[in-house]
Every structure is written in structure tokens, then in C-alpha cells.
């Protein structure tokens, strides 16, 4: 039997007193898609960084085609054929696709001028090789996240073509984009490229992976078949059976909190790609968690941001009522006065002050309450922070460290805790568990359900169908800015998808 394309044996990596990897074995065959799962802190990022040459292992060995290799920097790993696509795509948004593909490796004419036509031709050829029709002259800023992902893949493969390491490539993609990405990954695998696929989304594993390695606490917790039951994967991930990722549903809902009847949001200025709510009717009652499903561009995020007044400028038409009273939800102030709180899908960009302490972030939405007569009250602030730490298990339990240093799951808990401090009646959540590991997801779901049990109404948009189905009491399906179907929680995923895509189930 020939040696695997890439193998790691006995990898150990320490950082100060912390042992990130405690003897990891891993291998990848040519043409294989190997899923690497693990919660934050399990060591998968460290392993990825060893393979891509960011760090060197303290002990252990990396082999390519059976031959030991050492990388002292990412460039050497690339030269050995290992391409890594990090979550933060290293593309320059203000340059066009071709310029990005050739960044640092520009084709030149004699005399030192850029050969733009040649680069565009070559870029087109490479994009077409994976059947992606993107005009190489388009700016990366104008591409969707999914298209950018593909451009990043093409770019990475143009200088390292044997091993592709992808760090949560689907985290920001819609269902359709994920499908397209998987198609491309399969095509690459067919040409012999070995892919290490890192993800939080267990449900994607059977669809795309040939083999699964689960990491926990710096070790390999198990290697398994992609079609292993999800419960098995979860058990490997968290080290104990997680019988209930989703809490039990509410038994009854209370009075109507939010009521939209044939409500449309007319934009002050038309904006392409912003699917304004048009003719939506839906209700959220006290104690109820209502999900918003729909394909990308169906108007989920737009509905939430229009309700909270953070979207584009415009005006609601039709009936919009909160707590039985008609309200004009056209500004953040109006929404907050009506008791609405909002958690964005972009916690780093618009949810948190990353460099500021956890405690300072937590009290951000209740500054008024903790500053009587305009003076900050350290006592009230400490009380509020204590309340949040009591409600959400934020780790580390230290309000003084910068929130940016927390894991994704803990950052998300901070964002949620911050809005909960303001005692809202209605909570709008956009992608509440994006980039959050399974353990933290379970905690967040449990907290949301507990808050709902106290009477909070929750309207949650998500592109993760299992999340909507598992968490929500009801799911409203949006298409082109209007509600087209409604299901009770626990509904079959295909039924929802069919409605979202406008097909019969």
C-alpha cells in the first residue's frame, strides 16, 4: 500500500503552559475529503496551523508521500503543495477577481507593465475549469460570500495544488452556495486533491466527507464513518452523550407580542439585492420562539433589520403592532421603546466592541439604567455584569478581559446576555449560533427556551435548518420578502426546503 498523501504522527504542540496538541495522528489520502471536527479549543486550529506552516510541531512528524517535511513558514507549506483557506478570506475587496488571483504573482509585459488582458484570460480559464461563471473583471467587493469563497479556493489552488485545507468554509454560506461549494470540492477530489474540511456543521458531514476525524482536548477522540449517526459524532465531540441539543418546546404561548398583517417595508431608495419585506403576515406571541426560514435573499435578515430600524431607510406600510398597539418601527429608538432587542448575525462587525472588556460590552445596552443622572454607577454596573454571568455561562469568568479574546461561542453569549439585560419583550435574532461550537449551541438554545418560558417572544432567522426545526415552536418560510408557508417545529427538513424554494414537497 502506498503512503498517504499527507500524514501527521504524534504531533505535540505547547504554548507556554497550555498543551494544545497532545500527540495527534492524522492522515489524508489523495482524492479524499476528510472532515476534521472539534469544538473550539479541541486543537483543530492548531493542527491546521501545523499543516499550513504557521507553527512548527514541538514533537512529531509531518510527511508528504511518506517523506518527512518541515515547514518554517506558510510559504514552504505552499511550496510543498498545501493550500490553506482561512475563514478570513485573504482577498482584497477593492481589486477585481483577476487581480486577486494573481496578487503577488502578477503577469507582466516586457517593460514592467501589468499584463491585465492575459491575467483576465487566465483567470477566466481557471474559473471555468471549475464551472464558475464569474467575470474576472468584477470587483471582489461585488461578489457574494459564496463566490468569494470560490475565488479564494481557485487562488489557493493556483499555487498549491495537492492538499486543500478549508477552515469552516460554509460558515457564512447559504444552502444553495454550500451545494455549489460541495460540487466544486467533489470535482477537485476527483482530480486527486486531498481536502481537509473543518466544520462545525455536523449535518454537512455525511453529505461531503469520505472520513471523519473528531478531536477533543488536543487528542483524536475518534475516527469514524461520515454516515455515523449524529448522536455518535456529538458524543465524540463533547465527550458525553448530548441527548438533548434542543430543549423541550413550550406548552403554551401567551398574548400576541408582534403582529404583522400584510406589512411591507417601502425603501426610501431602491436598493438592488435588498429584499424588502413585502406583504408579510406573521405573529409572535409571548413565550414563543418563531423561526424565519428561507433561501438566501428571501428577506430574512431584511425583515429583522427593518423591524429594528437598522436596515435601509424606509417606511412600513400595512399593519405593524407590538403588544396589540400599532407602532411605527422606523428607527432603533422606536424599536427599543417598543421593547424590541436585536442580535445581529455579525457579532464582530456590529455586535461587540472587541477590544473592550467583557463587562463593558455587557452593559452597553443598559448604560442609561446604570448611570442615574448621567453618572456611571460602578455598583449598578457590577450588578448587571453579575446578572449576565449568572444567566449565561460566559468563560472565562472574568469580566475584565477583552471580549475579542473569547471563543466564538462565548462572544455570542456576551451579545445575547447584553440584549437580555435590557429586559426586552421581543428578541430578534439573526443567525444566533453562527460559528458557535456544539456545546455552546446547546447552552444558547437552553437559555433562549428558558427566557421564552418567562414570557419573552423570540423571532429567529437562521440558515441552519436543523436549528430552526429543533429550536422553534413555529417556522415561517419567507420567499421574495413574503411569508409563503408556516410549519410547526419538528417538521421534516425537506418540507421546509421545498416551501423555501417554491416547490411542492
Amino acid at each position, binding site marked *: 500500500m502506498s503512503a498517504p498523501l499527507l500524514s501527521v504522527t504524534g504531533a505535540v504542540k505547547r504554548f507556554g503552559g497550555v498543551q*494544545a496538541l497532545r500527540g495527534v495522528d492524522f492522515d489524508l489520502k489523495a482524492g479524499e475529503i476528510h472532515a476534521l471536527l472539534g469544538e473550539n479549543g479541541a*486543537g483543530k486550529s492548531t493542527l491546521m496551523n501545523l499543516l499550513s506552516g504557521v507553527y512548527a510541531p514541538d514533537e512529531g512528524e509531518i510527511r508528504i508521500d511518506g517523506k518527512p517535511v518541515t515547514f518554517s513558514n506558510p510559504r514552504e507549506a505552499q511550496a510543498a503543495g498545501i493550500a490553506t483557506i482561512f475563514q478570513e478570506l485573504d482577498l482584497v475587496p477593492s481589486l477585481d477577481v483577476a487581480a486577486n488571483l494573481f496578487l503577488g504573482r502578477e503577469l507582466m509585459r516586457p517593460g514592467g507593465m501589468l499584463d491585465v488582458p492575459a491575467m483576465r484570460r487566465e483567470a477566466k480559464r481557471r474559473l471555468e475549469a471549475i464551472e464558475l461563471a464569474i467575470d474576472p473583471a468584477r470587483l471582489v467587493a461585488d461578489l457574494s460570500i459564496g463566490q468569494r469563497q470560490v475565488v479564494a479556493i481557485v487562488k489557493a489552488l493556483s499555487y498549491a495544488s495537492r492538499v486543500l485545507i478549508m477552515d469552516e468554509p460554509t460558515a457564512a454560506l447559504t444552502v444553495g452556495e454550500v451545494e455549489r461549494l460541495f460540487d466544486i470540492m467533489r470535482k477537485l477530489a476527483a482530480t486527486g486533491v486531498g481536502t481537509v474540511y473543518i466544520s462545525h456543521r455536523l449535518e454537512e458531514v455525511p453529505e461531503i466527507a469520505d472520513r471523519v476525524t473528531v478531536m477533543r482536548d488536543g487528542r483524536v477522540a475518534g475516527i469514524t464513518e461520515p454516515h455515523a449517526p449524529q448522536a455518535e459524532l456529538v458524543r465524540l465531540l463533547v465527550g458525553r452523550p448530548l441527548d438533548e441539543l434542543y430543549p423541550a418546546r413550550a406548552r403554551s404561548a401567551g398574548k400576541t407580542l408582534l403582529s404583522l398583517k400584510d406589512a411591507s417595508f417601502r425603501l426610501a431608495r431602491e436598493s438592488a439585492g435588498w429584499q424588502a419585506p413585502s406583504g408579510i403576515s406573521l405573529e409572535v406571541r409571548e413565550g414563543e420562539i418563531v423561526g424565519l426560514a428561507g433561501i438566501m435573499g428571501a428577506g430574512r435578515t431584511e425583515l429583522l433589520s427593518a423591524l429594528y430600524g437598522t436596515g435601509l431607510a424606509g417606511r412600513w406600510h400595512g399593519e405593524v403592532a407590538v403588544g396589540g398597539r400599532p407602532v411605527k418601527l422606523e428607527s432603533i429608538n422606536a424599536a427599543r421603546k417598543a421593547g424590541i432587542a436585536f442580535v445581529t448575525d455579525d457579532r464582530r462587525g456590529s455586535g461587540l*466592541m*472587541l477590544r*473592550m472588556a467583557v463587562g463593558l460590552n455587557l452593559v*452597553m445596552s443598559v*448604560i442609561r439604567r446604570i448611570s442615574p443622572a448621567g453618572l456611571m454607577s460602578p455598583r449598578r454596573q457590577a450588578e448587571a455584569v453579575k446578572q449576565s454571568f449568572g444567566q449565561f455561562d460566559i468563560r*472565562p469568568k472574568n469580566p475584565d478581559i477583552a471580549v475579542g479574546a473569547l*471563543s466564538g461561542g462565548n462572544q455570542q453569549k456576551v451579545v445575547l446576555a447584553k440584549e437580555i439585560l435590557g429586559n426586552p419583550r421581543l428578541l430578534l435574532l439573526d443567525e444566533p449560533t453562527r460559528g458557535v461550537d456544539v456545546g455552546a449551541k446547546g447552552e444558547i438554545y437552553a437559555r433562549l427556551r428558558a427566557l421564552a418560558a418567562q414570557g419573552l417572544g423570540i423571532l429567529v432567522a437562521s440558515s441552519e435548518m436543523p436549528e430552526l426545526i429543533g429550536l422553534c415552536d413555529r417556522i415561517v418560510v419567507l420567499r421574495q420578502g413574503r411569508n409563503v408557508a408556516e410549519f410547526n417545529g419538528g417538521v421534516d427538513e425537506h418540507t421546509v426546503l421545498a416551501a423555501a424554494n417554491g416547490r411542492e414537497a
Partner: protein
Amino acid sequence: MSDQKIEGTANPAVPGPRTATATAKHRVDPLAIIVRFQSLIGLVLVAIGGVIFSPRRHGEILFLDPDNIANIVRAVSETGIIAIGMTFVIITAGIDLSVGAVLGLSAVVTATMMISGGFGLIATILAVLVMGTVFGVIQGTISTRFRLEPFIVTLAGLQAARGLALVVSGNQYINISYGDGPGLAPPVFAVLGERLFDNTVPVATIVFIIFAAIATLVLNTTRFGRYVYAVGGNERAARISGVPVSMVKISVYAITGFASALAGIVHAGQFNFGSANDGMGYELTAIAAVVIGGTSLFGGAGSMVGTVAGTIMLGALANILQLNNITPAMQLLATAAIIVLAAVLQSLVRRREGLGR
């Protein structure tokens, strides 16, 4: 420009002080402490250097001579007042380039109102302070309303203020003579150039210190102060949390406008004239003092104490070099080196914290 790769930091994989906090509590990065108090440490170092390198006369260290110390703190009081206002603006991730020009305009208007206008002391001071504040409000409003970079708006503000100062002064020095009657300023105004407490503490410095104390309280203990940090920390997040972002931004430019006017009044009182060229380049000295004081140009972080220490440190450094007859050219180079050093230290700490650039 965004802070990248933050998600990984809580992973034990990534080295850094924050990770250390997660496992071994209360282990603090010494570099972070140095940066936190960099301007105070710098001030102490400069003072020690001052004692060592100071010329001596009859065995007495000239640098420590009470007159010399008074000179240092007097000389920095105008830029110090401006730097205090600038600290608010820079914490919101903004910048105000108009401060020096507004100082000039304020000095000219102060002199003109008292000498040619026949206005009393109180009326003049109030009018000039209101003028400076309004100037800031206009700049802040233009910047927020039309979503313009404060750099551009206040660059235009700089030109406008200098232009107005030239118009008011007719490009002449407006000399301030004291006495009773028309064309003379009330003698009490001259107190700004004097010293109190047994002729030791310059009045200009007292104004500086009082202003600094009030600003410190506002920044650290009020709701508004918290809003300032929030807007600089993440404007979008602040907006979503219900922070009145535009009001906060307009307010910080109002504060720099007020501070510049106050500095302009002090300037006129110290030098007994107003000229359209007063305060030339003060904006850069003030920005330098703020940055040396540890306030981040990216916004969201900074301290008033740091700014005060940074201001005095720059003044003390200039003073030592002057005492040793070192040329102004060398003084500029020394300032340059300190600014770069302060910025490099901050950048190192940010990287150690895993918070990107």
C-alpha cells in the same frame, strides 16, 4: 482594518496573555502594563534624564529650578488643553485638525472684542467659548450628517478658521493694552500670564489642570464618557445598542472647539496680543501628546491621565534639549522618535493580545 482572527484566541493554541488568563488567572503581560502607563513612565524617564543631563549653575540643577519647572508646565498648558479635547475625539476614532486654527481665531476675537469692541471680560470670554463650541458643533454636524471623514471636514475647518481670523484681524497683530476705558482690556485679564501662590504656579497651568480634572471625570464617570468609548469601540454595535451615535460625535467636536477657544483665550492673555497665525501646528503637537498618552487612533481605548502625562513629557523633553542648547531640528527628531516608540509599543501589545493590528 478590522481586527482579524479573533475567534482563535480563546483556543489554547494561540499564545497570548488572554489565553493565560483563562488558565492561570491574574497573569498580566508586563508589556501591557508598560503601555498602559507608557506616558507616565516616559515622563519619569524624561525627568530622570533631565536631572542627569541638566546644566548646573553653582551646583544647582537648572532643570529642577522652580522657575524652570513653572516654565515647562506653562509652555504646555495651551497644547495640553487642546490635547484633552482631542482625546475625546480620538477615542471615538475621529480626528480634529482645526484646533490650532480655532485657537488663533479665538485669540484674535478675544483681543478684538476687548480692544476695538469695548466688550467686558466676562462677555468676551463667554462669547469666544460659545464661538469655539459652535464651530465644533458645525464640524461634527457636517461630518455626521453627510457621513464625511472628520479628517476632511476639520481640514476644511482649519482653513475656514484661519480665514476668519485673517478677516477679523485684518492680518494685523491685535495688541492688548490694559487699563480702564475704551480701547483697553480689563487689567485682570493679564492674570493669565502671571503666576499664583507665591509666584510659583502659572495661571495658564491652573486652567489646564482644572480642565483636565473635569475632562477626566466626564470621560471616566459619566454616561457620556462611556458612550464616547462605545462609539470608538464599534460604532455599529453602539448604534444597535441604542447609543445616540451622532449626538456623541457632534459633542466631541464641540468639546475640541470649546477647548481650542479656551486655549485661545489663555494664549491672548499670556502674550497680550491676538494674531491669525497663533496656534499654527498645535493640532499636531496635541495629536502627538494624545498618542504618546496611549490613546489608540483606531478608537475605543485611551485615557486622560495619559494625555496629560504625554503633554508634560513632550514639554519637559523640549525643555531639556533647550537647556543644553540643542537645536530645534534635534528637538523635532527626538519627538518623532518618541511618537514612533509609543505607537510601536501599542501595536506590540495589540498583537500579543491577539487582537490584530
